């Protein structure tokens, strides 16, 4: 029996329990011979990964506690099963097939199955394996390294003669000069490390380090990122933690791409007469920074403020608190690399192709200035530059202020901006008002509260009245029962495919409606047999 707990992309923590009652917290390495005693009984049962369907169908072994799976097989586990993906170690150096086969199989099997991959895990690659959705590993690969005199760490594999017993590790194995013990320790501790990063919401950051252990791991990460349509639905809509964009791959994170896509595809700006492009700040939200206070007092709401930043491209002022716009950190050198330039130029150009502003003021310098100009030219947008020298110099600010002198005053509409971004629905917000202190706002219609704002993530939390305004999308359909607490996955009949873990959802049933937050993505919500689907906030009987 397997139950997934914390999920992130394909990765997850979970609990796998055998019928005997024995159970492990996953991800975890097991001693396969004792944990799955039946496994070694099937002689002559090898089936290579690239074997064709006929060969596979003819020769597939039937294990007692495991389901044999294969890219070409129709053999499928059901909820709670443990699946064994044999011989996966033979594609570890073959990123193209690694990703292709894996995504095919992940698509073919229910997500709440435990995945065991034998003889693959090393301290240097197990982060990638866990990120690929594997849950159970064994010690075969590290034991083999021990037999070969190889010292394993999370940084790679090294000749034991030169690296073992040289002070690089102080585990019990190293104290005892027992390489076998060290290598198993190294695998176990690395799995725990990955597990903790996963629970902490920083698996991606860890991966962006660990993947450097080999070219193929880098390629695997990049290929996963290119499989955006497959991965993105599995990534929560927000994290409570910061997003550290510390490598080139950060630009390709599903969260980053999703943000850019939604700003272009969903977001409805407060105004499209005049925009002003300004730089980001290290402090988040931007408007709490000294530089933005200066910009804002020069702009005086006479233009739509759009922040140009890496890796997010463009952040309209309305969305500055939305995850990850209010939550990212990025190394700054002043130099924007070619990929950042290309990615951000494209984002800006697409935004201005969709939203035809009459005039855009560019208050940027250095590389971001060049990027913005190129993008505005590409999108045939009329623009004017307002900066001289340092952007926050009084001269620059004066120039900015006087350029906007005749602009109409109209502040950013946080409500419309957030709702359109979050729900993909252009709600009528004319009767709504934002009340309350900065970072503690509520949205009222008359005296009725329609939304609160989750200041941790920037998401709006609709009340029942709020849901009346969002006419479609983000619905979870349940059977005819009155929820007595959270809604479990088996209780979900159907749901909107746009729903991601962490999204605000509206639960609709014959007997009741409820507000709440999705605890899993749409696909899992519709197919899982276990686990909370929606954390319910309020229920209303019909």
């Amino acid at each position, binding site marked *: 029996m397997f139950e997934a707990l914390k999920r992130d992309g394909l990765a997850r923590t979970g609990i796998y329990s055998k019928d005997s009652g024995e159970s492990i917290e996953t991800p975890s390495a097991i001693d396969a011979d004792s944990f799955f005693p039946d*496994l*070694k009984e*099937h*002689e*002559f*049962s*090898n*089936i*290579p*990964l*690239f*074997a064709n369907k006929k060969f596979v169908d003819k*020769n597939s*072994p039937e294990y007692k506690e495991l389901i044999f799976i294969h890219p070409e097989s129709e053999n499928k586990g059901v909820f709670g099963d443990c699946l*064994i993906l*044999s*011989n996966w*170690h*033979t*594609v570890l*150096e*073959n990123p193209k097939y690694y990703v292709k086969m894996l995504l095919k199989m992940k698509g073919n099997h229910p997500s709440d199955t435990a995945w065991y991959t*034998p*003889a693959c895990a090393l301290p240097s690659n197990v982060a990638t394996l866990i990120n690929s959705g594997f849950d159970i590993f064994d010690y*075969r690969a590290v*034991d*083999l390294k021990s*037999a*070969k*005199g190889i010292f394993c760490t999370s940084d790679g594999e090294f000749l034991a003669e030169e690296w073992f017993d040289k002070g690089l590790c102080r585990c019990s194995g190293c104290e005892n000069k027992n390489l076998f013990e060290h290598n198993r320790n190294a695998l176990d501790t690395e799995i725990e490390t990955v597990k903790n990063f996963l629970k902490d919401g920083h698996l991606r950051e860890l991966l962006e380090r660990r993947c450097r252990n080999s070219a193929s791991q880098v390629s695997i990460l990049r290929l996963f990122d290119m499989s955006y349509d497959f991965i993105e639905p599995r990534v929560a809509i927000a994290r409570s933690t910061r997003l550290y964009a510390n490598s080139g791959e950060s630009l390709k994170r599903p969260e980053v791409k999703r943000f850019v896509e939604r700003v272009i595809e969903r977001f409805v700006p407060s105004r499209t007469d005049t925009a002003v492009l300004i730089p980001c700040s290290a402090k988040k939200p931007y408007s709490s920074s000294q530089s933005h206070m200066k910009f804002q007092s020069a702009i005086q709401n006479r233009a739509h403020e759009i922040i140009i930043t890496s890796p997010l491209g463009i952040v309209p002022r309305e969305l500055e608190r939305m995850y990850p716009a209010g939550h990212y950190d990025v190394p700054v050198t002043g130099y924007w690399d070619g990929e950042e330039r290309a990615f951000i130029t494209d984002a800006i150009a697409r935004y201005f192709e969709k939203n035809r502003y009459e005039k855009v003021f560019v208050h940027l310098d250095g590389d971001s200035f060049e990027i913005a100009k190129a993008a505005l030219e590409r999108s045939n947008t009329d623009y004017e530059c307002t900066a001289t020298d340092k952007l926050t110099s009084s001269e620059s600010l004066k120039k900015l202020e006087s350029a906007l002198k005749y602009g109409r005053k109209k502040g950013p509409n946080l409500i419309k901006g957030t709702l359109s971004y979050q729900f993909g629905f252009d709600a009528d917000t004319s009767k709504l008002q934002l009340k309350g202190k900065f970072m503690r706002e509520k949205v009222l219609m008359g005296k009725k509260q329609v939304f609160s704002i989750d200041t941790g993530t920037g998401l709006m939390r609709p009340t029942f009245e709020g849901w009346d305004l969002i006419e479609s999308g983000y619905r979870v359909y349940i059977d005819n029962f009155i929820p007595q607490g959270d809604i479990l996955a088996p209780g979900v009949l159907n749901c909107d495919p746009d729903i991601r873990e962490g999204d605000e959802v509206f639960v609709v049933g014959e007997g009741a409606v409820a507000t709440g937050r999705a605890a899993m993505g749409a696909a899992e919500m519709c197919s899982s047999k276990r686990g909370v689907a929606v954390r319910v906030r309020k229920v209303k009987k019909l």
Partner: protein
Amino acid sequence: MISQKIEKPLACWKSKETYSGEVLDCLTVIFKSGGCSWNRCTMCGYKNERYHKMPAEELSTRIKQQVSWVLSEFKPDSYQMVKIFTSGSFFDTDEVPPGARDSIGEAFKGKIVIAESRTEYVKEDIISDFLAIVDDNSHKNPLYVAMGLETTNDYIREKCIDKGHTFEDFKNAVSQGRKAGAGIKTYLMMKPPFLTESEALLDMQKSLKECAPYSDMISMNLCTVQNRTDVERLWKQRAYRPPYLWSALKVLIEADVHVMCDPVGGGKRRGPHNCGKCDMEIVDAIREFSLNVDKELLRVYFERGCKCKNEWEFILKEEKPFCMPLTE
């Protein structure tokens, strides 16, 4: 083009062989023929080594030209034994027309002839006829029929080699050959694909025991990765590793009967190999053993070991059908 292409065998070379305690000069000839009628074995590299389809008469002529070439290139009195291979079965009449077979018999009359065939072509009448041609009473057993049994395990033979016959078929063929008065040479294959190192090793040891009663000579082939074979495809997909030389050593040392073994490609990535450091000395020892039938040297190398022997022992224990091959 006006020049006539010279017809030559696919390969032809001389070597030493042990026979009844004596070391003989032996000529090995691989004739180009009409090609194997089965042509499906996973490790076979001769699938494409055949004449295009042609009338039997022309085929016969071409093979006879190959015989002439052999006779002119290798002095008949420089060897006492001949091993005849085709890219299929020497006794398959479609592959080697009777006329051609007869001239080959004539050419090697008086030698000890070993001719290879699939089991289904080993028929008493054909063998008797050929024996009659070869035999000039110089030798007690002038003809041996060689068959690739590969393994006595029908399941392995079918799944891993796709050989198309059974151990029973082999036994029948043996009885046909014996009735015709020929001796029997059996080829076994060490580590076809889809087997772990230990499955391969145990299968070889079992096969040796089980085929011994039916065999006058046994030769163990160590699987190599030939161009354009199924095995090569698997190897490139990292799904196949040739056997360790340690496994070969172990089999040879522990065998109750004498087993001949020529570790072709030994020490190369595509052939049976260990770590690269200890390979060549073991290959040489195995070659020497085939001649001198003395296990002492084998034992010396086996016991001396190498860093990689640890790895091999681990592989024997831990390589399983669901995680193989563990090494390259």
